[in-house]
């Protein structure tokens, strides 16, 4: 397909090392599809990248309103990319509301691509504009490409006989074609994707491809007119190997399947739909060929109870939800702790409390994970720091849940779940397996017999002759598992449950320092999805000669055994968190150190600059 190749002389393109583009439009404009297509094309071009889908909770909010604006931000480049970028270089605004909501984020002098055809009086009014920003001086500080995309796309798809409504739905591919032109990107992957996606509606595929091409050709023509600068972003230098893009949701699902295989167990996944956790359920429901059984339960409680039932019967029971759903599961988590069964609880955190902001990201369930149950009820808490890291943390969750016969809560968040990044594809076959054996020997069997090293009780599953026994949520006598109201026994069992979990600190890596020295003036301690901005900010400040280190926790409970000593080696400790200071409190409690909070709960990730300012301020004092 020669016509798809880029004809412009590469010399005309200005080489830059990274670019942040924010696509924005109405939630019916297909912005997320545009973003994911651009992501795949960018990955295939060899750039490193990070994405941030930012969409409303409403599936179709009233058209043209500010609360119906959907956005997709991507940061890509020839250097290492850690975040989706602070401020966009380019804003694509397919309607006035998208401009209204997103303009403030745009870098001074940045480029705005606007569909002027959507800037009608009605749409301007809905977006809250008193004057048309295209006709006053309000956009003077930016490079504005105002193009009547609405008109051009309808012309481009005229020959396919679509309705006006269907024709306008090709707008996103028109603008994608234009952006591909500006960055010198190949369209063929997107064309292939459209052909596959609309295999049953070739007319729709053809129309979208025509729109994509028309946008691209428009770019070529307008470039001749000198309307805009063209760019080239060379491929990033990345470790050798085979890559793909992966979202946190996908990596988590695959990691769970890999972990279960390494444990030699079958997965039972009981879940109830909830934003932003559902992608994990969707991904696993398509993995039946691996023996994965998914069960969409009637509610959050049934979801976890079915998973515990499956673990009792010899599967690896897993449940998944977000904060409000995890709250509903609390009592059942206690039962899994008391009956000492393996269980993984995935918490895709979102902004709270209560329903909160379902599609906005937050890390405010750390207290809930570590402390949020009745009774003294310890479990393992792990946190993933990015899309591809989900794979590793999911495997670690499987290992600890089965080896120690305990529930493990895996904290991720909406941002990680939906964001994509390039992933050096691991080889599961090379991983060290951790096969879990069931108890089958009836000789001297008691359900609460324990492994003396791990304190894990032996797992005898129904169907095993001679090992019939009863377990439940009433306190049990250690060993026999019989109901016991004996005071000393409850003390002993409480101690055992605590010690079993704390002992896991001896089976996890010591806390490493991500970047910087292992002691010094300032440690920035993070967990979860603050990894990107902290990593970039510390990197920048180290390059400036500042004495700062980045420590990022994967194991939240138990904490790594060396963490207290490590943190005491720094004069100051700052804990950036997308909550009101939860890890900070845990660190103060555990180590009596003066950890200082840096908190943000706007539903948006930290900006690199916010962390940088905190580092500068701390080092100045």
């Amino acid at each position, binding site marked *: 397909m020669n016509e798809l190749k880029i004809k412009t002389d590469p010399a005309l393109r200005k080489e830059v090392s990274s670019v942040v583009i924010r696509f924005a439009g109405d939630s019916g404009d297909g912005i997320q599809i545009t973003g994911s297509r651009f992501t795949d094309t960018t990955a295939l071009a060899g750039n490193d990248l990070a994405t941030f889908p930012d969409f409303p909770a409403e599936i179709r909010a009233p058209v043209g309103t500010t609360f119906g604006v959907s956005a997709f931000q991507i940061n890509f480049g020839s250097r290492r990319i850690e975040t989706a970028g602070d401020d966009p270089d380019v804003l694509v605004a397919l309607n006035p509301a998208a401009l209204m909501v997103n303009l403030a984020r745009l870098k001074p002098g940045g480029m705005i691509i606007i569909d002027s055809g959507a800037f009608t009086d009605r749409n301007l009014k809905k977006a809250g504009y008193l004057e048309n920003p295209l006709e006053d001086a309000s956009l003077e500080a930016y490079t504005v490409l105002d193009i009547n995309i609405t008109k051009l796309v309808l012309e481009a798809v005229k020959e396919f006989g679509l309705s006006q409504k269907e024709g306008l739905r090709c707008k996103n591919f028109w603008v994608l074609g234009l952006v591909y032109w500006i960055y010198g990107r190949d369209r063929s992957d997107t064309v292939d994707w459209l052909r596959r996606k609309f295999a049953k509606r070739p007319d729709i595929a053809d129309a979208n491809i025509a729109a994509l091409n028309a946008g691209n050709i428009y770019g070529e023509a307008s470039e001749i007119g000198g309307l805009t600068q063209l760019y080239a972003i060379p491929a990033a230098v990345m470790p050798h190997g085979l890559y793909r893009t992966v979202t946190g949701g996908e990596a988590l699902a695959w990691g769970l399947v890999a972990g279960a295989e390494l444990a030699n167990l079958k997965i039972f996944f009981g879940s109830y739909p909830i934003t932003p956790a559902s992608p994990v359920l969707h991904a696993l429901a398509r993995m039946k060929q691996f023996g994965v059984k998914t069960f969409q339960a009637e509610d959050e409680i049934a979801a976890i109870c079915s998973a515990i*039932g499956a673990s009792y019967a010899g599967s690896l029971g897993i449940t998944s939800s977000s904060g409000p759903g995890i709250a509903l599961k609390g009592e059942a988590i206690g039962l899994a702790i008391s009956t000492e069964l393996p269980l993984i609880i995935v918490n895709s955190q979102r902004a709270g409390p209560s329903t909160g902001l379902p599609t906005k990201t937050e890390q405010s369930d750390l207290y809930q994970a570590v402390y949020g149950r009745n009774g003294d009820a310890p479990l393992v808490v792990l946190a993933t720091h990015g899309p591809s890291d989900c794979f590793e943390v999911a495997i670690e969750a499987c290992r600890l849940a089965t080896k120690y016969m305990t529930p493990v809560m895996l904290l991720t968040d909406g941002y990680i779940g939906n964001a994509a990044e390039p992933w050096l594809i691991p080889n599961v076959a090379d991983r060290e397996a951790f096969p879990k054996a069931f108890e089958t020997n009836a000789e001297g069997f008691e359900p609460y017999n324990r492994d003396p090293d791990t304190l894990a009780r032996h797992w005898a599953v129904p169907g095993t002759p*001679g090992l019939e026994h009863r377990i*439940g949520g009433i306190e049990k006598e250690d060993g026999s598992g019989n109901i016991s109201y004996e005071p000393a026994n409850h003390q002993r069992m409480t101690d055992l449950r605590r010690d079993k979990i704390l002992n896991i600190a001896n089976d996890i890596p010591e806390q490493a320092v991500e970047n910087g020295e292992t002691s010094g003036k300032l440690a920035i301690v993070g967990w979860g999805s603050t990894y990107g901005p902290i990593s970039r900010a510390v990197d920048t400040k180290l390059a400036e000669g500042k004495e700062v280190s980045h420590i990022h926790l994967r194991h939240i409970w138990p904490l790594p055994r060396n963490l207290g000593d490590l943190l005491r080696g720094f004069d100051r400790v700052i804990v950036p968190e997308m909550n009101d200071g939860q890890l900070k409190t845990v660190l103060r409690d555990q180590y009596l150190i003066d950890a200082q909070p840096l908190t943000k709960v706007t539903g948006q990730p930290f900006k690199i600059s916010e962390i940088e300012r905190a580092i500068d301020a701390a080092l100045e004092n």
Partner: protein
Amino acid sequence: MNVAVTKDKLKPADFASDQEVRWCPGCGDYAILKAVQRTLPDIDTPKENYVFVSGIGCSSRFPYYMSTYGFHTIHGRAPAFATGIKIANPELDVWMVTGDGDGFSIGGNHMLHVLRRNVNMQILLCNNEIYGLTKGQYSPTSGVGLRTPSSPDGSVDTPLKPLVFTLGAGARFAARGYDTQKTLPDILKRAHAHKGTSMVEILQNCIVYNDAVFDNVLARDVAAEKQLHVEHGKPMIFGAEKNKGIRLNTQSLTLEAVTIGENGVTEADILVHDETNRSLATLIADMDGHDLPAAFGVIYCNPTATYEDGITEKLEAAKANGKPSLDALLRQGHTWEA
């Protein structure tokens, strides 16, 4: 272990655990426990495959008194645990024991869904119309006006009818018995033989908090007039003289009790029980011993595919193309070399 030989040797006592039974003296649960222990030796299931699952409440202590696998879970959620157990290992023979509060108040939602999904298991509902373990508050099946610590002036709640709920939820098996009923094991065997969720409501006397609540149906002097023991294909006849029957009023689509030989009623007017007829089952499940006798026996049995059969079928279809490799899956779609 040679399962076949073992099975022949099993007796009711072989299903009793070594734990001391701690229900109140005279509790109807003792009789139900005995009935279950008398039932299992006659069922062709290896002992190690039985799993008794319960929630919270007096009757939910049941698994501790059985020598099978047992899981005493949390309040109201036993159907969800049982569903997970059954999906994870369809070979297991799952019996769920619950009460009116556990099953129909806090666990009402799960009950609805296990019944409609038709998970292959037995549900023994020990209905004593009271909260026993929390010391006597009215339950969702308690009658209007019942005075309890939480309803000192009499309950104003309309009671729920468990078997009407069961049939409304789309269950394929519904039966009723009572704690001391000699033929309870026969009903339990029918419940077990039915593939799918089998609901058995067992009227159970709580001697401490709601004693004799079922006397209007179970008392010896009224039993013949207030109990209708249904049998598939047999006319619905009751009464000490065996001369009363149930007739359908075709105008109002309601049931009425009639006496054969009075007002021109003949045996031909009496309804014949058809346990596969859901409309009929719903009508007789609703009879409560007030105007009409309460029905006992298998009220509805009309099997269809079970939930776990459906899951297994999808799983097998997905596996039809041989054993997949996760590494291959991770390399599908767009990849590139760096």
